[in-house]
């Protein structure tokens, strides 16, 4: 009557061990938190859970101790390969740094609720699952697991109006964009008859031979999925929520959100488009969405970088800068649709995401460090003369700004190098040129931040030095420099990441 139930070996459960541990840990901590009065311990235990999960993820990535086999798990729902492992590592490191930079900020703004750390862990689990989904329904569920905690986190500073507004906007627009994604998934399912990426790709490859109904269903479905995920990664023209949400949310939340949501969103984007839907149109050999994504990337690069020039508030500036950086990753994504470049484009995107995660969390952490208790003090004027008052903080901020610009010897340069190389390999020279030009534009506003810190004098009061936040800053700054000076670390990590299965 029923098929034989699977065993643990069939399911390959251990392959998903990092995400299982993380979500289990968060679940237990959620109840335990009600019995722990000192929230320092909740933060410490969360960090411990993330750490254990990270160690296992590193073992998996380094192929030590045979924790789970590579390949599919959970009857094809879950994919454990190098791509998964790298996404896991990036998401977990972001979560760990996110916890480190949050503790003192939450304490001094009277926000020390234990749920904060638990929600943060759940959303990290969502991002990890997005990187390992091999099935469209999994992608949707893990997207919600990533997003819903972030909606709550951005509104966690509750009586404050900006935070509430930010949560409301993020929630409404996020739910709206999810509906696009679901409709897209439904149409793809209608055309391909399966939600499994490995089966969809067979239909997608032979699309020009399909009947017209099926062909249009698949194309419209792919388009709607692009819109839905485009919202999540803040690609122009779906970026409208980003500045307001990033500005209104508490700064450590913004730091964490801006990197982890991008990691998860782009991981799912790559999985869906490169693995599942490389739709080959009649008479061409590149995927049909390459042109669409090129346009999105060009718009995102131009708008993000140009509008960022006019920003006075640092959080808003970094919000537009994060839109701009989505543009660079979109270049890699567009390159992923060209035959033969799929894998190297996915690797470039991973390298960029890893470099960006470190740098961007660090940049926002500096903003969190100079922000006052009433969430003012984040403007361009407030960092004037920072180099005199807090030389190390200013030094760290300079590292992050140079890395975001893409100056050599920083992680940002390595990321941009990989992305532009993938674009050249794919024959998308105009886009690569645009990327270089907009990087040059971006230098204007990033360097202005550095200029204000070192060559202007100001009398803004900066909060006391914060121990844990500083340790987070040390890790991010060191990470930014190490990844920039020793590029082979990332190269070895992503070398085996492979997404394009049929070509």
């Amino acid at each position, binding site marked *: 009557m029923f098929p034989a139930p699977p*065993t643990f070996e069939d399911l390959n459960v251990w392959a998903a061990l990092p995400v299982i541990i993380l979500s289990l840990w968060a679940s237990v901590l959620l*109840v335990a938190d009600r019995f722990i009065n000192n929230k320092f311990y909740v933060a410490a235990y969360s960090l411990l859970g993330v750490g254990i999960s990270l160690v296992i993820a590193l073992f998996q990535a380094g192929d030590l101790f045979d924790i789970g086999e590579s390949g599919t798990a959970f009857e094809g729902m879950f994919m454990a390969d190098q791509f998964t492992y790298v996404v896991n590592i990036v998401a977990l490191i972001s979560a760990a740094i996110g916890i480190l930079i949050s503790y003192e900020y939450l304490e001094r703004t009277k926000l020390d609720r234990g749920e904060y750390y638990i929600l943060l862990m759940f959303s990290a689990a969502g991002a990890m699952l997005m990187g390992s989904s091999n099935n469209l329904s999994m992608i949707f569920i893990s997207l919600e697991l990533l997003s819903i905690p972030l909606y709550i986190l951005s509104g966690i500073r509750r009586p404050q109006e900006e935070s509430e507004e930010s949560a409301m906007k993020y929630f409404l627009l996020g739910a709206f964009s999810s509906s696009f994604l679901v409709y897209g998934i439904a149409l793809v399912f209608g055309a391909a008859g399966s939600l499994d990426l490995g089966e969809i790709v067979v239909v997608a490859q032979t699309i020009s031979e399909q009947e017209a109904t*099926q062909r249009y269903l698949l194309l419209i479905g792919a388009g709607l999925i692009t819109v839905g995920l485009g919202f999540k990664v803040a690609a122009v023209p779906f970026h409208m929520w980003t500045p307001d949400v990033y500005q209104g949310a508490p700064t450590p939340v913004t730091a964490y959100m801006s990197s982890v949501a991008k990691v998860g969103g782009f991981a799912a984007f790559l999985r869906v488009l490169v693995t599942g839907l490389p739709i080959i149109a009649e008479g061409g050999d590149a995927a049909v969405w390459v042109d669409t994504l090129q346009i999105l990337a060009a718009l995102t690069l131009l708008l993000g970088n140009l509008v960022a020039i006019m920003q006075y508030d640092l959080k808003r500036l970094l919000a537009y800068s994060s839109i701009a950086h989505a543009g660079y990753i979109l270049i890699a994504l567009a390159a992923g649709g060209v035959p033969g470049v799929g894998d190297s484009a996915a690797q470039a995107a991973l390298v960029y995401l890893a470099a960006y995660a470190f740098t961007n969390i660090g940049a926002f952490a500096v903003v969190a460090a100079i922000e006052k208790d009433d969430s003012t003090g984040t403007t361009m004027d407030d960092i004037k003369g920072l180099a005199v008052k807090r030389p190390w903080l200013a030094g760290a901020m300079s590292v992050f700004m140079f890395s975001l610009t893409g100056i050599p010897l920083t992680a940002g340069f390595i990321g941009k190098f990989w992305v532009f190389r993938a674009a050249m390999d794919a024959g998308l020279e105009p886009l690569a040129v645009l990327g270089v030009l907009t990087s040059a534009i971006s230098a204007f506003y990033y360097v202005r931040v550095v200029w204000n810190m070192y060559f202007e004098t100001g009398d803004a009061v900066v909060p006391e030095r914060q121990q844990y936040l500083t340790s987070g800053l040390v890790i991010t700054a060191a990470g930014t420099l190490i990844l920039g000076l020793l590029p082979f670390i990332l190269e070895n990590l992503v070398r085996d990441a492979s997404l394009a299965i049929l070509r």
Partner: protein
Amino acid sequence: MELNEWAFIGAFFMLSWIFPAAPVIINKLIAPNRPTPIKRETYECGVETVGDTWVQFKVQYYLLALVFLVFDVEMVLLFPWAVAYNELGMFAFLAGGVFILLLLEGLVYAWRKGALEWT
């Protein structure tokens, strides 16, 4: 898919309008109409609303509704699980157990958080 297969969906769409509309219209046409004040009340049983409905509700209502959802969703999935229990084996037992534990956790959290107290 042939195009005339879509015609079935069109037919269903039209029928879905006709079926509910027809009884209402027929009723209107042939039923005797003798209204009295009692018959014209909004609810057949129940009290008429007093005052404006746009008043503030206690937020506890929403919390209770959310906790209720825990049990409601549980029922939908656990009923078939329990009915087919003998044929499912160890794996499905564990899967169901994990599911119940997760829901239990939600309840314990809401309880400890004070969502069940009416004050």
